[in-house]
């Protein structure tokens, strides 16, 4: 999840499909929930990666 940086900006959620860096590091291929398109993302320190297993707990 990527936080909105301005007032009114929504958080953006997406699904990490692949890790393109060595040893499963960034950039990550992300499919964005709001648009459905895929891009490479280098997440910042304000981005949160939630594992699917965490959601079921």
């Amino acid at each position, binding site marked *: 999840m*990527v936080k909105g940086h301005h007032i009114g900006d929504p958080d953006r959620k997406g699904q990490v499909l692949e890790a*393109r*860096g*060595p040893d499963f*590091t*960034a*950039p990550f291929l992300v499919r*964005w929930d709001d*648009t459905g*398109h895929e*891009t*490479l*993302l*280098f*997440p*910042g*320190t*304000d*981005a949160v990666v939630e594992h699917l297993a965490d959601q079921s707990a």
Partner: protein
Amino acid sequence: MRIEEIAVRPAVTAAPGTSIAEAARLMANEAVGCLIIAENERIVGIVTDRDLVVRAIAKRVALDTRVDDIMSMNVIALDAGADIRDALRAFSMHAVRRLPVVVRGKVTGLLSLDDLVVVLSKQFGELTQGVAAQLLFPHAYDEASPPAKVA
């Protein structure tokens, strides 16, 4: 057409601890409008000349402040092997004018929206060249390929 086939500019990188003043000097010396902020060859952010103006100068931020305090994080990038249509999609979906190009996570260049417009304009020009010639010299085309005679 793949991104690596387009004339991608070399990316100018700086460390996160670089001062705002040094970042501005680097942009001036290298004649670029943005710096990729990288640590151990990994992208951690991007800072543009506009960021320097809006996030630093306008707010009277001290010029010795670290550039990572004003940089944009969550950087969208393009794989060098991606198709030009991926670049078009990325530019249209994200409000950015420059995208770092990477190979296996390491930055290798920078693609600007301007670069892409130039490439697409050239392709469009080539596409319309034949049609334009036909519009300008219609008779020349008629003489070159006369209709077949029927016995």
